[in-house]
Each structure stands twice: as C-alpha cells, then as structure tokens.
C-alpha cells in the first residue's frame, strides 16, 4: 500500500499514526490542548479494524497505570496528556521506568506552573528529560517540530521503547498539537502477535513465572539494578542521539532550539542572514539523549550559542553542560503560553552578539 497524504492537526496525526503503527492500546483523559488525540481515536474506533483498545480513563493517574498494566503484558500501549496531567502521571511513569517497561507517553505541553494556561510552552523540559518522578531514571524523549514528525515519531518512539525496554516520551507543545500541516501517513502495520518472553501473559509450564515489579527491598540488589539502568541510559546516549542542523557550516552564532522554537529559529536564521549575521541552528530531535557531543564540537567553531525556548531557561542548561565553558551561551525565552516571533528572536540574537 502507498503512503497517504492528509492535512491534519498534530494531535490527529499522533492518533492516526498510533493506529497505523499497530498500537495495541491507548488510555487517556481529556485535557486541552491535546484532547483531539482521544477524540480522534474514539471516532476512528480502531477496536473494530485493528483491535486496538481505546479507553477514556477516570483520571490521568488511572490512564498511566492502565499503560503500566498493558506494557507489562508486552503490548504496544500509550497515553497522552498535557502538562498538569503529565504531572499527575509521574508516579506511574517512574514505576514503568523502574519495571523497565516499554510504552509511549505524549506530552502536548502548555504553560505552567499549576493550572497555568492552555497555550503552548516548553516549560516541561526538566520534568521530561531529567526524570520527572522519583528515583534515578530517564525517559527517551523525542521532540517533533512538525505535524509530519508528530506522526513519524510515534513509530520511532515505540521502536526505541521496545528496543531498550524503557518508556519513551514525545515532548510536543500546544502549537504543534493544534496546527495543521501536510502529513504523509505510512501504510498501516498489523498489530504484533508476538509473546515477549518477559511479559506477564500467563505462565506456561515451560518457563518460570514472570513478575513485573519495581520493588527490591535488598539495597545491594537495588543498587545493582540502578547500575544496570545507568548502563542502559549510557548505551542510549551512545547510539540514539538525533538532531538536525541548519547552515552550521559557516555559522558564527548558533541557535539551539527544539520543537516549535526550532521552527521559529529557522525563520529567524533567514532574517538574520539577510542582515549579514551568519546564524545557524542546531535542532535537537532527541532531548534525552541530548546531542552533547555535536554541540561540543560546534563550540569550537562558533562565537556563541543562543538557546531559544518557551521556558524560563531549561534546555539552556544542557547546552552549557555540552559546551563546558568553551563558548558563550545565552538564553532567550518566552513563557506562559507566549510564542516568540522570528523578529524578536533576531533582536535578541543581536543583543546577545553585542554581549
């Protein structure tokens, strides 16, 4: 079957891509600006076509724990929410990480803290990339910057999640969730019938009983398990870094931005070039693992880096850690649901250059 071209909202693209990626289950709770995901899935009713389960849970807490239960069966399961709902899910997410289960969590970020606003923001970066819940763990975090990537990254996130038995998050925002763009949809895949050896699917005589848990009361064993997790995260950092570069060859100043901010910086870069400023852009696609190595290399050739993000300054800390003092690092951010315009980004680049 051929790819199919559609005009879709980012949220709808995620939903459709989940069906086509052969997802087994979606469990969610409505919250703006991502309710279209649940609505689209309910309308599409994949239970009758692919057998995918779609369930509106009583809360985000229940939704993430449904994901936990489904993932523990080795099923391809997911949830989505927006910032306040993702905060509620943190307990479940740390259990899932601790039990080493694959799943997909989508966060269509809105401004906070608290109930905040329903407009786009990138202020959940720390929560997404540094853990979020309690304990030492990481999610694999992927940041789409177009509707096409909202669709494509569903399958990518599932693949990485199963490859490493680790929860993966698509960190999007209200802008990408709500905007419509062209999207090429892949032909639908069948749901997998495979029974994974570690999954709880009923104990046959041929194996020991499988126990999915994050509990170990023995500290020595728990520490060994922590070391195993860290080794996994190091391997992910080694193998799974993804990023995109724009005009970095001759760039004297580098924007570092992801998601919606990266789109704005693409325009800002063009405007800056018209004014004779040799600007470039590095767009991290994976936020964990972060493209530390490449940023460190670029620090040798640029005069400074400006992190642009819709937050008070979160990702900028990773830029600083990556360049480790080799070059100047600045930050420009808008908050509370405000989206910077390309023009104001250029103005801020100019003042950054002046120092």
């Amino acid at each position, binding site marked *: 079957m051929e790819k199919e071209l559609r005009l879709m909202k980012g949220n709808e693209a995620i939903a459709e891509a989940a069906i086509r990626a052969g997802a087994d289950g979606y469990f969610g709770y409505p919250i703006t600006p991502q309710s279209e995901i649940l609505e689209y899935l309910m309308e599409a009713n994949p239970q009758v076509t692919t057998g995918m389960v779609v*369930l509106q849970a009583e809360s985000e807490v229940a939704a993430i724990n*449904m994901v*936990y*239960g489904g993932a523990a069966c080795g099923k391809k399961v997911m949830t989505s929410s927006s910032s306040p709902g993702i905060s509620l899910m943190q307990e479940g997410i740390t259990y899932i990480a601790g039990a080493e289960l694959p799943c997909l969590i989508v966060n269509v970020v809105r401004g906070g803290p608290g109930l905040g606003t329903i407009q786009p923001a990138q202020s959940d970066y720390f929560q997404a990339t540094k853990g979020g819940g309690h304990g030492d763990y990481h999610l694999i975090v992927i940041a789409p910057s177009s509707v096409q990537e909202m669709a494509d990254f569903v399958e990518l996130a599932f693949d990485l999640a199963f490859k490493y038995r680790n929860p993966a998050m698509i960190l999007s925002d209200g802008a990408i969730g709500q905007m419509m763009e062209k999207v090429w949809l892949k032909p639908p895949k069948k749901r997998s019938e495979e029974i994974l050896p570690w999954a709880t699917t009923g*104990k046959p005589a041929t194996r020991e*009983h499988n*126990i999915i*848990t994050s509990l170990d009361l023995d500290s020595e064993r728990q520490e060994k398990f922590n070391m195993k997790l860290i080794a996994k995260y190091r391997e992910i950092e080694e193998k799974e870094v993804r990023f995109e570069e724009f005009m970095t060859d001759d760039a004297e100043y580098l924007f570092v931005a992801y998601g919606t901010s990266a789109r704005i910086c693409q325009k800002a870069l063009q405007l800056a070039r018209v004014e004779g400023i040799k600007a470039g852009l590095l767009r991290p696609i994976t936020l964990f693992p972060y493209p530390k190595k490449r940023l460190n290399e670029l620090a040798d050739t640029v005069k400074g880096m400006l992190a642009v993000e819709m937050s008070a300054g979160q990702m900028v800390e990773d830029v600083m850690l990556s360049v480790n003092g080799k070059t100047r690092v600045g930050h420009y951010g808008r908050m509370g649901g405000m989206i910077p315009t390309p023009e104001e980004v250029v103005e801020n680049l100019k003042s950054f250059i002046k120092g």
Partner: protein
Amino acid sequence: MAELTFNDIIKPENLTYTKSKLMTDNVMHYCPGCGHGTAHQVLAEVLEEENLQSKTIGITPVGCSVLMYNYIDIDFQEAAHGRAPALATAVKRLMPDKFVFTYQGDGDLAAIGTAETIHTCNRGENILILFINNGIYGMTGGQMAPTTLVGMKSSTSPYGRNVSTMGSPIKMADIIAMLPGTCYVTRQSVNTPLGARKLKRAIKKAVQYQNEKRGTCFIEVVSNCPSGWKMTPVESNKWMEENMFPFYPLGDIKVPEEK
C-alpha cells in the same frame, strides 16, 4: 497398639490437607496468625483446580501483600499504591481470554485507590477484585485505615477512631454493590475452615462469572491483623468475630441471576 511415631504420622497416605501445588516454597513474611496466608492458599487452590495457572495474571497492591508474587507461581504485576484495578483493566482489555484478578488491602483499595476501584467496577471490567479488609495499615505499622472501626485504636488514632474528626469506617462492598457494572459482591472470612471453604466457593463463582463476561466480581475478606491490633492470633480472631463481623456482616450482597 504401639504408639505412632512422628515418622509414622507424616507418611503421604496420612495426609488430609496439603498446600496447593501453585504455592511456592518461599517462606512467607506474614505475621503468625495473619489471614493473608490462608487467603493466598485458597486462591491458589482455585487456580490449580480450575487449571488457570497458564491463563492468570495477578495484580498485587502496595501493603502487606505487596510480595504476594513470591508465594503463588503465576505471572504477576506489582502495581503502585491503589492502582491495581487500572492495571487489571488494561490487562483484561488487551487479553480478554486471560483470568485477571487484583488482590488489595483496605488502604490500597478504599483510601488511595478509591477512584480506580469505583470506576473499574462501574465500567464492569471482567475482573476479580479480592479485597482483604483488616481495618488497619499493617505494613507501615498499624495506622488507621478507612475501614478502621469507630473507637478502634491505631498508631494514628491512638485515642480511638473519632467519627467527628476522622469520619466513619467505609463499607466498600455495599458501595460497590450499587454499581451496575458489578455482577457479584460478597463478604467472606478465612478465620475458620468453614470460612475458607466458603471463600473458595466464592472465588470459583468469580472464575465462572469472569468466563461468562458478566462484569466485575468483588470479594471482600474480613480478616485480622494480630500485630497491628496488638493481640495474639486467637484474641484477634475473637475480637474480629465480636467487632468486625457485626459491622461488616458476612454473606452475599449481590449475586447475578443464574443463567
């Protein structure tokens, strides 16, 4: 007649009762006299007799029975506190042919997990919820539970449960029975052999109803906590009969129409 020696007595032909083959040899961490061990054994007997080992996924709670997965030889998922019914919902929806149960204490099911309990039952998920109600938080050292009786002392109600500041004990089974999604709600006990046999019959019915996809089955086991109640096992059983049973009367609360 010569007196029987120990070795004469333990011969296999003299066995009248044995643990289920599905019970592992791991030493249980439960306190002497606790009802959990009996409840586990009864459940394991049903799973064995109904040939369900390869079809069963159990969800354990946070509480004393958190390590239940060490004692019964079936696949288990260990849930976060109160969330077992959410896990069970997904497991059953994704694998409708499996036998799925949760095993939860009173803090897990009736306090922190109230929303999950109510909504799972309200959706009528085809699962079994086994609810062990001993009116106290055992694992964390004897704090007040939502089901702690009025006047009953615990480490967080040292002067006894005071209704005006701590609310009344909650009768979960009665609440659950009001929800159309549930098909079978019953209250049982494991303090006597008869009680254990009745519980076994109830679990067998729940297996049947789950097979018939008739909705949620909810079995409450009113049980004891010698350590938490600060009593000997015998005293705790007597106290349970005199105080718990009148407030949480045993017997069926809701039964489905026979087909």
